[in-house]
């Protein structure tokens, strides 16, 4: 009895009682099961609902392969470009002081606050047949809407902030003194970047690239608007999934979708590995 009162008296102020812990914990677990795990499980169950052969047939079918190839192509263009841009932007924002810096930071974040469908529509308005720049580009023989070019542009827009956002807090924290030391030791700007700045952010950069890539391959909204859904030509994997689904070809649709789900899982594992191994060297590790 006295033991019990004691415990209550000396209970740390941030500790909840056992009952409260249990209820909250159960709620959290159920929530995660229901909203995160079930959909993932369903994707894989449905994907294999007609057997492994049907699964393999669905993902190796001609249009599926061309969708996979297109998705890889788009990511292979968009991700390196955004990596370079992100590095340059983070470098400029964190190592220098200039007018309009806060505007630049807001602009970098813009794609996150705009609905992807809207960003796709903006490209249609700009580059479409009736758009502002469309007719002009048409005369030059450049087509953007309903082509791979449009897909790449929309993807770049949507995945714009990932790398920069990851690097900015990290580089801010590291400050400029190592760069200054490199300069006084005789390094050129280029040497300073390759030998000091880049190695210091390498894990954070990898982390950002990983997230950027996951989004580039999985993006649906913006890409859907500019693609035109031409099978074998402008259909990425997410769009191909939708088409199959609309044709009531559920098993095939889920089979292709499971590829994206696997990409998500691989990304998640790599991301956790990075956080676990190099937590101190990536900004996400500090955010908790």
């Amino acid at each position: 009895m006295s033991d019990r009162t004691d415990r209550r008296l000396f209970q740390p102020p941030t500790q909840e009682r056992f009952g409260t812990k249990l209820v909250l914990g159960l709620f959290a677990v159920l929530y995660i099961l229901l909203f995160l795990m079930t959909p993932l499980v369903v994707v894989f169950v449905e994907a294999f609902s007609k057997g492994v052969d049907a699964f393999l047939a669905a993902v190796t079918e001609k249009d599926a392969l061309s969708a996979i190839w297109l998705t890889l192509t788009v990511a292979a263009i968009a991700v390196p470009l955004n990596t370079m841009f992100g590095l340059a932007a983070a470098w400029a924002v964190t190592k220098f002081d200039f007018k309009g810096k806060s505007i630049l930071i807001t602009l970098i974040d813009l794609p996150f606050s705009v609905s992807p469908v809207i960003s796709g529509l903006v490209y249609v308005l700009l580059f479409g047949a009736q758009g502002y720049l469309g007719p002009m580009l048409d005369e030059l023989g450049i087509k953007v809407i309903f082509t791979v070019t449009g897909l790449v542009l929309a993807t770049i827009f949507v995945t714009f902030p990932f790398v920069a956002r990851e690097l900015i807090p990290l580089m801010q924290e590291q400050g400029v003194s190592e760069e200054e030391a490199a300069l006084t030791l005789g390094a050129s700007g280029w040497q300073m970047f390759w030998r000091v700045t880049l190695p210091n952010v390498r894990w954070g950069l990898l982390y950002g690239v990983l997230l950027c890539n996951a989004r580039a391959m999985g993006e649906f909204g913006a890409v859907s608007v500019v693609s035109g859904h031409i099978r074998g030509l402008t259909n990425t994997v997410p769009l191909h999934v939708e088409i199959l689904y609309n044709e009531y070809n559920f098993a095939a649709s889920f089979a292709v979708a499971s590829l994206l789900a696997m990409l998500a899982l691989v990304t998640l594992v790599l991301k956790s590995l990075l956080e676990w191994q190099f937590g101190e060297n990536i900004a996400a590790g500090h955010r908790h």
Partner: protein
Amino acid sequence: MALEIDRVTKRFGAFPAVREVSLIVNQGEFMALLGPSGSGKTTLLRSIGGLDLPEEGALRFDGHDLTHVPARERRVGFVFQAYALFRHMTVAQNIAFGLNVRPYGKRPPRAEIRKRVDELLDRMQLKDLGKRYPSQLSGGQRQRVALARALAIEPRILLLDEPFGALDAKVRKDLRQWLRTLHDETKLTTIMVTHDQEEALALADRIAVMNLGQIEQVGTPDELRNSPATPFVKEFLGG
């Protein structure tokens, strides 16, 4: 005369951090810039190192104008307050950095760089620590690596920004003695920024006392103690 600072002014926005400061540092001298925080001493040091660009005035080294020479060409050994060691490089790589980044013609051969690094490790009492990373070192060891890295480029002048600021009292005293001995051996012109009057008095040949972006008085420790020029100097040294 080694270094001549001629009416140097540096502003941050409208705020003048250093106002028309003139100072002559002699060849082989150990000079301390002493003052409270915000007195402009670090800004002056960074101007000498080429990390801050003064708006007015001139810097001359052995009669050559240094004012517009970029930091990388000044051959100045700068030891930063928090050491600024390259965290992803080993101690040996840190020390070799200044030699490795030299352009092709001027870069010493690899064997010679290694020899130079070994010599410095030896001299800085860091003998077996060459393969360690900065995060695996104590404060005093990091300090000595920073010094070794700065000395590796054979600087014409050594600049120290609060070199003992991050160390505890005991290590401070040991390192202080050791630094003075090192200076007496190398005869390298040295400028040290500090807010600790005891440190300045114990180490420096001459001290420039700074306040509000200007130099109040320059003199040997005895001169400053015996005949302070302004009430500020008297109070700051007496404290």
